[in-house]
C-alpha cells in the first residue's frame, strides 16, 4: 500500500482523530468478530473470522509497509 496523499509530514502534529482512527476501526472490527460468532453459525462465524483477522492483517501490513 502506498502512502495516502493525506499522510501528514513527519514533523506535523496529528490530531487525536488521525492518531486513533485506525486503532478505533480495528477495535470495532474485533468487537464485531467477538460478538458475531456468539449469535449464530455459518455466515456469522465467517464474519467473526474476518473481524478478528483485521488486527492481525493490519499488523503484518505495518511490519512490512511501515518499516523505517
Amino acid at each position, binding site marked *: 500500500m502506498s502512502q495516502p496523499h493525506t499522510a501528514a509530514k513527519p514533523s506535523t502534529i*496529528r490530531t487525536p482523530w488521525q*492518531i486513533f482512527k485506525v486503532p478505533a476501526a480495528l477495535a470495532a472490527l474485533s468487537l464485531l468478530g467477538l460478538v458475531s460468532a456468539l449469535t449464530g453459525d455459518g455466515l456469522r462465524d465467517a464474519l467473526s473470522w474476518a473481524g478478528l483477522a483485521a488486527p492481525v492483517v493490519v499488523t503484518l501490513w505495518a511490519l512490512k509497509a511501515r*518499516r523505517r
Partner: protein
Amino acid sequence: MRRSTIRIWYLTHKWTSILCTAFLLMLCITGLPLIFEHEIEDLTGDAYVMPLVADEGQRTSLDTVLANALASRSREVGLFMSFDEDRPVVNVTSGPAPDAPGGQMTLMSLDWRTGDFVPAPHEGGVMGFLLQLHTDMFLGLPGMLFLGAMGFLFFTAIVSGVVIYAPFMRKLDFGTVRVGRSKRLKWLDYHNLMGVVSLMWASVVGLTGVINTLSDQITTLWQHDQLAEMTREYEGMGIPAQLSSIQAAIDTAKAAAPGMRVQFVAFPGGTFSTQHHYAVFLQGNTALTKKLLTPALIDAETGAFTAMRSMPWYMQALLLSQPLHFGDYGGLPMKILWAVLDIFTIVVLVSGLYLWLGKRGTSVDARVRELESGGRKSPEVAEAQT
C-alpha cells in the same frame, strides 16, 4: 495533553504493568495450548469410538444409568448429570456428600443407549496441569481471586497504555516501526503497534477472565437471591431421604420447555440447586441461547414441577464470559486467530518488560520526554537535557 497529565498516565501504565506482567505472561503461555485442548486430545489418540448397537435411537432410562454409575461408588451420592452434545453419552458426577467439594468428586461416563460404562474424559495429564495453573495456580479460591485481580490490573494497563499512545504518536504515522535505529526504539514501536491493534481482544479476554474468577461468588449470589425466591415455600426443608425418579424429573422439565435441550441436572443440596430440588438446566437451540441456561426446578421428593425462570443478568454475564474467554465458539479459524492475538499479547508483555528493565536508572521525567518525542529522544538524551 499536559506533561503532568502524561506523567500520571505513564506512571499508571508502568506500575499496573509491573505488578501484573509476570502473571499475565504465565496466563498467556499456559492459555496458548489450552485454546486447542480438544484438538490436542483428539490427536493424542484418547478419542473413544462408540460401539454400534442395533437401534441407535434407543435410550435406557436415566434412572438405570444413574443406578449403574452409583453402584460402582459405594456410599456416594449423585451430584450432577450432564449430556454430551455430539454422542449419546451421559456423564454422572458423584461424591461422598451432596455438598462435596470439587476435589472429592468423581466423573463417570455411560452409554445412554445401553447404560454401560464408557471411558470418562480424563482430567489429569499435561493439559489438566496447565488448566489448573491457569485457573488458580494450585492455590484454590485465593489463587483464582488473585489472578482475577491481576486481570483487572492488566485491563488498567491497557487503558493507560491507550492514553499515552496519543502523545507518543503525535508525529508518527499509524504502524510506524523504526527498525534501523536503536534496539530500544524498535521494541518501543512493536510494543505500541501490537498493543494498540489487540486492545479490544485483550480487554474482552482479560475482563471475561476476571468475571470467570468470580464464578463461585456469582453462583452463590444467584442461589441466595433467585433460587431461594423461586422456592420460598420449601424454605427449611432438607434433602429428601428418597430421591424421586431423575428420568421423570427431566421429562417434566422438558414438557415445561418445549424445544429446549437439557444440558445438565444438579442434584439437591449442591451449589447449583436447592436442598429439595433437582435443578434441570435447559439450553436453547441457537448459538446464543445455547449459552444462556434456563433452570427448571423439580421437587426431588414428589417429582412435581416447582418453577422455571431465565437466569438474571449477572448469571448470563457469567455464562457468556466463558466462551468469550475460551474462544471456542467459532470453529478452528477462530482458535487460530485467538492464538495469534495471544502471541501478540506475549510480545507486548515481553517488550514492555524489556523497555522497563533497559534504562532503569533514568528519571521519570526523562521517560516522559522520550514518550512525548515519539521515542526520538532516548532516555539518556532526555536526561542530559533536563
